[in-house]
């Protein structure tokens, strides 16, 4: 269930694939039209020194003229020379905060004498437009779709919210310092999975958006928005933008044979080394747009007449996360880092048929000590190439 209910029964809409150009001056008309179509808009906005996702009421809520500089463990907002609306890379938030909220009440049970009743949680499925979704983020949403609605058990809350999303993608016009979507095959170009895709073009006095229609609901919100048809030059500029971004990736990750490489190096000395630096703080997993681990918690009131069941983000970096009746399975930090990375980059293939990493770089930027999974893969690869012990056995 890759794209739940985005296409009607009649197949793709005739407008799908249509490209047109929206002038910068008319951008607010697009926002107005999205709202008129019944969507609330969430998207990028500057808050507390970063570009995060939040409600977009007006064009001025967007990070106009802002960009970010990212390195391992560092993020800084900076002013741009131009007035770009989307001239930044992905920040600390991801769209999972909407689709898979960090805390969610699942239901409430009431004691009724010797029995009990359950109140289902009303679905929060207000139609919502996600504005500014990047290629890696489209790929991340697709991965979480597979986790939450793609198997036999469908998560009803996620499914309800996902169905009502209007996904407005933006092509990255620059790569961030920790980006490596090219290595992961997820970007920088958004090619499908969107309702609308925008490419921002700023050249001299020209400031426009190439708008590509990806679905019928995308086509519908464009009705009444002043557009001109795109010509060959507009399309060429879009392609050039994406190419330029692809050539300026901040990082690379060699995926060649990675499944067997990592799972064959469970005793690699690098796990101990990275474990000396890792804080087991969970920031990487919280920031990662594909990490889906959570725990459920019963919250009874004092006389236990009512019990709420809550779900909250949890992490394989927590001691309690692997606690069984005899205690935690992963007591050491190296074992937790290894669990995270081997799942993300290797055993995810066995479980879901793809890598669990889309190359967004968030875990690198938002790690307080700047641990870089691309560097960790390189270290393990070079240890393997050098036949560095103690890799034999691969237990653990």
């Amino acid at each position, binding site marked *: 269930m890759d794209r739940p209910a985005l296409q009607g029964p009649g197949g793709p809409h005739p407008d799908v694939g249509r490209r047109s150009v929206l002038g910068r001056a008319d951008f607010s008309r697009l926002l107005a039209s999205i709202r008129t179509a019944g969507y609330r808009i969430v998207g990028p906005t500057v*808050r*507390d*020194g*970063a570009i*995060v996702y939040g409600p977009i009421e007006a064009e001025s809520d967007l990070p106009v003229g802002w960009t970010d500089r990212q390195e391992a*463990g*560092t*993020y*800084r*907002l900076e002013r741009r020379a131009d007035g770009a609306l989307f001239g930044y890379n992905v920040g*600390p*938030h991801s769209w999972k*905060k909407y689709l898979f909220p*960090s*805390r969610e009440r699942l239901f409430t049970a009431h004691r009724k004498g010797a029995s009990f009743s359950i109140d289902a949680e009303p679905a929060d499925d207000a139609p919502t437009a996600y504005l500014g979704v990047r290629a890696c983020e489209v790929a991340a949403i697709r991965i979480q779709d597979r986790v939450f609605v793609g198997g036999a058990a469908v998560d009803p809350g996620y499914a309800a919210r996902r169905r009502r999303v209007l996904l407005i993608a933006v092509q990255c016009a620059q790569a961030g310092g920790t980006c490596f979507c090219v290595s992961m095959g997820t970007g920088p170009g958004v090619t499908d999975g969107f309702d609308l895709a925008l490419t921002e073009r700023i050249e001299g006095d020209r400031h426009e958006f190439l708008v590509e229609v990806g679905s019928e609901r995308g086509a519908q919100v464009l009705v009444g928005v002043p557009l001109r048809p795109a010509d060959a030059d507009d399309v060429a500029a879009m392609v050039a933008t994406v190419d330029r971004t692809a050539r300026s990736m901040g990082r690379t990750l060699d995926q060649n044979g990675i499944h067997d490489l990592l799972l064959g190096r469970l005793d690699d000395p690098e796990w101990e080394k990275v474990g*000396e*630096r*890792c*804080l*087991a*703080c*969970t*920031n990487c997993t*919280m*920031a990662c747009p594909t990490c889906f681990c959570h725990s459920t*918690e*019963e*919250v*009874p*009131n*004092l*006389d*236990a007449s009512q019990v709420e069941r809550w779900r*909250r*983000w*949890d*992490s394989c970096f*927590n*001691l*309690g996360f692997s606690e069984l009746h005899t205690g935690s399975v992963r*007591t050491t*930090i190296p074992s937790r880092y290894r669990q995270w990375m081997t799942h993300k980059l290797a055993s995810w293939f066995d479980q879901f048929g793809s890598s669990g990493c889309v190359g967004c770089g968030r875990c690198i*930027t*938002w*790690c*307080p*000590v700047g641990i870089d999974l691309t560097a960790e893969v390189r270290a393990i690869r070079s240890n393997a190439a050098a036949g560095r012990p103690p890799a034999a056995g691969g237990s653990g």
Partner: protein
Amino acid sequence: MASTTRPRLGVWKFASCDGCQLSLLDCEDELLAVAGRIEIANFAEATSAFAPGPYDLSLVEGSISTPHDAERIREVRAQSRRLVTIGACATSGGIQALRNFGNVDEFRRIVYARPEYIETLARSTAIADHVPVDFELRGCPINKRQLLEVIAAFLQGRRPTVPTDSVCIECKRRGTVCVVVARGTPCLGPVTQAGCGAICPAYDRGCYGCFGPQDTPNTAAWSRRLRELGMRPDEIARIYRTFNAAAKPFRLAAEAAPSGDP
């Protein structure tokens, strides 16, 4: 709890500021439910009525800092079926455990006109250093939601759900932008236990470590990073030495930071 009589609650104070007991008073609405469900047999902050033991559940605030207290806690323990310590003082010795790193006799001479009247121990210590404790609720002050959870859990005969993860997980769950990464502000969140809801980073401050060390605190790695962020060794030692100075991982981290005292 199958007993027909209401469980009896005792609230006890040792060396502390009363802030944690006040968290219980602060639960006004919930407290009504508590009062109906349990008999509050000893709670000096709420009532002057004192009922003798035994107690089904004792909440103990404060650290042991005098010989008299060291005796009294044994009496409280003997009178209590379950004993839960609340707050940084009771669980780690509190801010007053800073004396552990100095010379108490000297302090006594400097501070008091008649030092011979002051009977005090050389160290301020956690309740668990003196008597067996059934559960330790961290925080300076404790979080009232966690306090209610602990009381509910004991009334219901189950283990309290009080995660020992880092503050960072709460910080990220609430969507706060990390002050370390985005501003270079020092923060103790990665080595500190969750529970406060990551309040300080939400107001652009680093975490002060009020809830003590998380379950797997990598203070060595974090101190290295704090150095990179520009903190001097003496500043690093000092940030570990606050409300939970005597909690072992923080005590060792402060000792490991080379002293740069002027």
